[in-house]
C-alpha cells in the first residue's frame, strides 16, 4: 500500500530531521529583558512603544492572526481594534468579549490567566484605544464573575453544522488516512508534524483560532495564500476539504469538518 509505505518513511524522516533538536533557529525571544534605548530625536516620529511587554507577545500569539499586526482586522470578517469603541470604552464590556467570546471570536477565559488577560487587554487599549487606561488582573478576576453575554466558545463549533453543512458523511471512507498523507506532504514541513508551528516563522495549526473558527477565512488563506503560505489551488476541492477537516480535528483542535462544497464556495 502506498499509504503505509509513506507512513513508514515519515517515521524515519522524523527521527532524522526533528531528532536534531527543536531549537528554533529564528528564536524570537519571549520576554527578553527590557532594554530602553534612547530615542534619537529627529522630528516627531510615530508613537509605537519600544518596550517588549508580555501583552504584545500574547497579542502576537493569540490575537494577531485575526485582528492583524496593525489591529485593523480583516474587512468584513474580523473586527478592527483600531478605532473600535469597544476597545477604547469602559473596560467591562471589552473584558466580557475577551473572556467569553462573541460571534467568531473565541472566549479566552479558560486559555489565559487574569494577569495575561490584563496584559493583553492593556496592550490593546494602549495601542489602539485612544486614551483608554490599562486593566488590572483584579478587574479581570471581577469580570469573570459577571454573567456572559456572548456565545460560549463551545457553541462556535456548531456554526458550520447550523449552516446546513453535513458532517463527515460527505467524505469517502479512509479520507482521514488520505488527509494525513497530504498533511505530511504539504503542511507538516512548515507547520511541523504536530501542528505546533515554528515560532517567528510559521504559525501553529494547533489551537489557532483561524483554523478553528469560521471556515471562510481559513479556506481563503489556503486557496489564495498569504506571505509564506503558498496558494494550494493545485489540490482539488475534495482534497482541500479533507486536509482542512483533518487539521480542524487534530492536535487538540475540535471544529466541524469543511466540505468540498464549502471549499468551492458553493455555500
Amino acid at each position, binding site marked *: 500500500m502506498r499509504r503505509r509505505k509513506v507512513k513508514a518513511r515519515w517515521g524515519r524522516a522524523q527521527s532524522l530531521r526533528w531528532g*536534531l533538536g527543536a531549537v528554533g533557529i529564528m528564536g524570537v525571544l519571549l520576554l527578553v529583558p527590557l532594554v530602553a534605548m534612547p530615542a534619537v530625536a529627529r522630528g516627531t516620529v510615530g508613537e509605537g512603544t519600544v518596550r517588549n511587554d508580555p501583552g504584545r507577545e500574547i497579542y502576537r500569539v493569540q490575537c494577531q492572526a485575526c485582528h492583524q499586526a496593525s489591529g485593523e482586522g480583516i474587512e468584513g470578517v474580523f473586527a478592527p481594534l483600531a478605532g473600535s469603541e469597544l476597545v477604547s470604552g469602559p473596560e467591562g464590556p471589552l473584558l466580557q468579549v475577551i473572556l467569553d467570546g462573541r460571534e467568531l471570536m473565541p472566549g479566552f477565559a479558560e486559555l489565559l490567566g487574569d494577569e495575561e488577560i490584563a496584559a493583553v487587554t492593556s496592550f490593546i487599549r494602549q495601542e489602539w484605544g485612544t486614551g483608554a487606561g490599562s486593566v488590572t488582573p483584579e478587574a479581570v478576576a471581577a469580570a469573570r464573575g459577571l454573567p456572559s453575554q456572548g456565545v460560549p466558545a463551545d457553541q462556535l463549533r456548531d456554526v458550520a453544522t447550523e449552516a446546513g453543512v453535513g458532517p463527515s458523511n460527505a467524505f469517502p471512507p479512509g479520507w482521514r488516512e488520505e488527509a494525513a498523507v497530504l498533511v505530511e506532504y504539504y503542511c507538516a514541513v512548515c507547520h511541523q508534524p504536530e501542528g505546533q508551528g515554528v515560532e517567528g516563522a510559521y504559525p501553529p495549526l494547533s489551537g489557532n483560532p483561524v483554523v478553528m473558527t469560521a471556515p471562510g477565512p481559513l479556506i481563503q488563506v489556503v486557496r489564495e495564500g498569504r*506571505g509564506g503560505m503558498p496558494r494550494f489551488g493545485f489540490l482539488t476541492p475534495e482534497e482541500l476539504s479533507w486536509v482542512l477537516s483533518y487539521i480542524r480535528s487534530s492536535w487538540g483542535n475540535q471544529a466541524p469538518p469543511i466540505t468540498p462544497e464549502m471549499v468551492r464556495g458553493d455555500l
Partner: protein
Amino acid sequence: MNPSLGSVPSGPLTRRRFLKLVGAVGGTPMVMQALNAWDLSMSSTRDAPPPLTGDREGRRVIILGAGLAGMAAAYELEKLGYDTPILEARPRAGGRCITIRGGSEVRELGGGIQRCEFDQGHYLNPGPWRIPDEHTSTLHYCRELDVPLEVLVNRNPWGWIRFDDVEGPLSGRRLRQAEVLADMRGHVTDLLARSVHQDALDLELTPADREKLVAFLVHEGHLNPQDATYGGATRRGWATPPGAAGPGEPSDPHDFLDLLRSGLGAGFPPRWGPTGTVFQPVGGMDQLARALERAVSHNIRPHREVKEIRQGEEGVRVVVQDTRSGDREEVTGDYCICTIPLTILINIPSDLSGDFQRAMRSVAYNPSGKIGLQFRRRFWEEDDGIYGGYSVTNRPWSGDGHISYPSYGWNREKGVIQAYYGHGGDALRVSAMSPRERIEHALAIGEAVHPDIYREEFETGISFFFHLEPYSLGGYSSWSDEARRNHFSRLLEPDGRVYLSGEHISHLTSWMAGSFESTWMQIEKIHERSGQEGGA
C-alpha cells in the same frame, strides 16, 4: 520642450527608444503597462539606473535588508550624498543571492542541518542561477562592479528526454531532445507541404506564393527538396557519425503518431524562459552579491532583526534587535526603503496604513528549492556528449523535470549537477523528506536518463529550500491575477515615508533584475521628493 526627452536618442523608433519615450512622458508605471501590453515582461525595462543629480548630504534613507535590492539602493543613493544604513537580520549580506560550496552549512527551520562536502571549485546556486541577456539591469551591475561572466548553456538539444507512463511505444524510452525537436518539425512541415500540394489550405495562394511556402517548409523542416517529405535530418543525430573512414549514416525518424501520442513533442521545449544568451558569474552567483557588498560594506549592519517600523510627519523610526545580544535600538531617518520579503514584513508591527497592509497580505510566496549532486566523473560530457543544458524526465516530484548540467569546468574531472529544481507543492513535498531521502530522491530522478552511472559516479549532495530558510520563508513572490489587478499599484507607491523594493515589487518576480529595477524606480521617487522637501 520637455527637458527629460533630451536624453532619448534620435533615430528610428526601436522598442527601447519607444519605452524611453513612454517613460519620459508617463514614468515607470506607464512603461510597465506598455510592456505588459506587449507581453514582454520577461525582459528588463531599464538598462541603467536613473540619471539623478544633486547633493543630499545629511539626508538619511534607512534601508531594510542587505539583499540585491537593498545594497543597490545604498550604492546609488550614496553617490548622491545620502546616509544609507542597511539593517540586515542575517549575519551575512546577499539575501537570496547565494552560492553553496564545500564547508557551507545549511540550517533549516525545524532543526535540519546539512554540511556541504563539495570539492573546491564546485558549487550550487540555490536561488538565482541565470542572467538572461535581456536583463540589462543585472548586466549593468556585473559590468560596473567588474563581475566576470561566462556563458551558461541554457538549452542543449543533445540533452536526454524520457517520459514514463505515456501512450505508445516511446513511453519509458530515452531519446535525445534533438530527435523529438527535429522529427516534430519535420513531420508537421511535411504534413503542411502535402496540404499545400492538395490545395487543402484555407488560404488564397498564387502559384508563386505556393512555391515560396513549400520552399520555406522544406527549409524549416529539413524536408527532402525533391518531394517535400520528411525522412529524417542530420540535426536529429546520426546512426553512425561521419569520420575519416566514412561519410556517416543518417538516423531514421520516429513515427509521427508515436511522438504525438507520447506527448514528448508538446512537452518540450518549454514555452517560457530566456530566449537568447544566458550568463552566470564565474565561480557562483554570489559573486554578484559579493561585489555589491564590497561597494557598500561600510553601510551594512548585520544581525539586526527589524522589530517595528514607525513613521511620522517628518521621519521614519525603525526598532531593531541585535540577534546576538538581544539589545534593542532605534534607527531614525528621513525615508525608508524596505526590501524585507513580504513573508516576514506582514508580521512586523508597524503603522503602515490599512490599504497598504492589505496589499502586502494579498501576495503569496512560492516555495522553491534545489538539490545539487557532485559526481566524480563528468560522464554526461565524456560518455554522452552533453555539454551544458539539461535533460528532462516526467518522474513524479521531479520539480520542473530538468536535470541541469554545469556550465563551468568543461571537460575536467568532476562536476555538480543541479539535479532537482522544484516549486510550489512539488518543493513542499520534496522538502518534507529528510536531507538524506532528498538525495536518494534526486538520484532516482536522474537514473531515468543516466541509468546505473548516475549512482555509480555520485559522491555527495546538498539540498536547499527557501521556505525552510529563516528570513526568506519562501522562494519568490507569486502574484495572483486578482492581487496584481487590485493591489500591485498600491505597493509601487510609498506609504508615508516607507518605500518597498525587491523582486516582489516588479513584474520580473523571482529574477534579480526585478530587485534592481524596483530599487531604481523607488530611489528616483525618493530623490525627487527629498528635493521638494528641502534641506535636513
